[in-house]
């Protein structure tokens, strides 16, 4: 049996932890100097920093949330506000290990999960057929209506997926983040995210297909 002296033992485990962290966050981007400066200002309770943060990040965070709450504006606004308030409270803990947007998405993902947990643990099951075209025979709906219909169908189908599947899909294909960035938001390894994406897409396709058949 190999017995390590205490100093070596400490370095051994520190190495293991650093290696694990590297696997988890490799290829992930670090915060830019301006993002770090913004968070330092926010931590010092600078009102200008709050205004800038809302100006820069309110739209992306709102959009990220909006697609995961079935497009309900009130919920999206409430969760966006909760996300920013939580970010303000935790500003002093921002270490710059990721982009600020990634960090905000991570907080938002937790808030969304809390939101669904509070609401009977499951997102509401929207009947997909309700979003089918309602135009009369021989009447071609306008193109924008088709697009709207598609979005509503996809959003409704998204709500049937497990929360982390939904988050992964929105981050990857709506926010168009790289797998590494998605991994940073979801605090998983890129490999895990890739397999989640595959399963999520299969499940979404199946859901949409079943809706079409009905």
């Amino acid at each position, binding site marked *: 049996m190999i017995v390590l002296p205490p100093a070596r033992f400490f370095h051994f485990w520190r190495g293991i932890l650093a290696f694990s962290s590297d696997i988890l966050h490799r290829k992930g981007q670090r915060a830019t100097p301006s993002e770090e400066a913004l968070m330092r200002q926010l931590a010092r309770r*600078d009102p200008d920093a709050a205004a800038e943060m809302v100006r820069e990040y309110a739209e992306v965070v*709102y959009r990220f949330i909006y697609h995961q709450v079935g497009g309900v504006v009130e919920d999206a*606004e409430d969760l966006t506000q909760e996300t920013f308030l939580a970010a303000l409270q935790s500003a002093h803990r921002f270490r710059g290990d990721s982009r600020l947007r990634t960090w905000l998405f991570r907080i938002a993902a937790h808030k969304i999960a809390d939101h669904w947990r509070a609401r009977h643990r499951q997102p509401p099951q929207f009947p997909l057929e309700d979003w089918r075209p309602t135009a009369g025979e021989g009447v071609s709906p306008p193109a924008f209506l088709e697009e709207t219909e598609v979005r509503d169908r996809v959003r409704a189908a998204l709500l049937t997926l497990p929360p982390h599947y939904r988050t992964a899909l*929105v981050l990857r294909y709506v926010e168009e983040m790289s797998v590494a960035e998605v991994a940073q938001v979801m605090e998983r390894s890129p490999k895990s995210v890739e397999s989640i994406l595959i399963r999520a897409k299969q499940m*979404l396709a199946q859901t*949409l297909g079943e809706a079409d058949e009905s």
Partner: protein
Amino acid sequence: MSHEPTVEELLRALAREDVRPRLAFKVQLTERLIAAMSARPRALWWRPVLVGITALLVLALVGWFLTPRMTTGATLVVETGEARVSWQRPVYFRWTRSGTSSIPAGQKFLLAEGDRVVLSGDGSGNLTFPDESRLYLAGGTAFVLEEMDPDRQVTRVTFTAGEVRAEVPPLPGRLFEVGTGAATVRVYGTVFRTRVVASDHTYSATDDGTTRVTLLDPAQGYPSVDVPAGYEVDAVIGQPLQVRPQAPHIDHLTLNGVSVEAEGILISNQPGLGIFGKTDTGSGDALLILEGRLVDRAPITPEGEFRLHFQAPAEGEYALCIAIEAPDGARSPCVSLSYRYDTTPPGILRLLEPAMPEVSGETVTIRGETEVGVRVRLNGEPIPVDPAGMFTTRWTLQPGENQMTLESCDEAGNCTRLEFVLIRR
């Protein structure tokens, strides 16, 4: 041919949607953030307090588990005098509390392992254990309750002074040990007595059952002997252990077949002395020894009784020794009995007053002289005699002649009599 959109394409339809928060919302969010900034940070003072309280509770719990538990249960009852108890009790972890308590007569004290007890010289008491073993403590006894383990059924008491009589019920597997500086006495249900004679000398006697006495002498290899009922041993460092019968008890005495009481010295004018005694041995012989010479020998009955006889050859005082001889020849210490055979009556009995036989009054003063230490009776009525042998009393006379009898008797029962007549005119 229509193109079937992929899941990715369907999802990107969401990306193309122009989703933006309302401007009013953004303004409201900014104001809300600025308001939150100006608000006092949440008071988190309770967190360290909670952590502290939790740590204290955990510490208290761990300490409580690690605090040694003391076995208590031996009850000391002080019957006379006073006892001083030096005690130490665990409080928390290694922290202990100690003190000395004075226990007056009539009070009880619950002893624990390690307690030291000193009984005053005029004191007496007893110590009762949960298994009903009981130690009767003589005055001046000092001891330490070394061990009292109900799981291992072991009780150890070490005496540094005094004398103790132990009654230990015969429980299977139960070890009761009384130790001194010189010896240990181990028993498994018995009655025995132990006395600390000196730091290197312990006396132990067994009254019931058997004890095992071990001499704490490394030079002799810690020899042990079994001491059966009725036997005793002196454990002296540097000397061999020798078990011998205990000195017998004199049950009662008879003089020519009549029971008599004796206190210190037996004085009689009867020559034949019968001695009835008892011993716990139940075997061997009882011996009557006069000045080193065997006068009488009698076998001991299985009940431990014996009867000896002494015939005084002439007047005089005899120092008798009664002892027990075991079948192996070991002889017990003597029980001494002093016997004075006296057939000589008091030599002096004189009437000093009245000087003349004729008396004028109804009462008369009778005054006389006799030997020191005798009893005087006038017409059968006892008259007090002073230490010088003088006696005086008033006596009421009948008219005419009064026959008077004055009698002086010594302790042996020998009497001198004086008869005279007083005439009341």
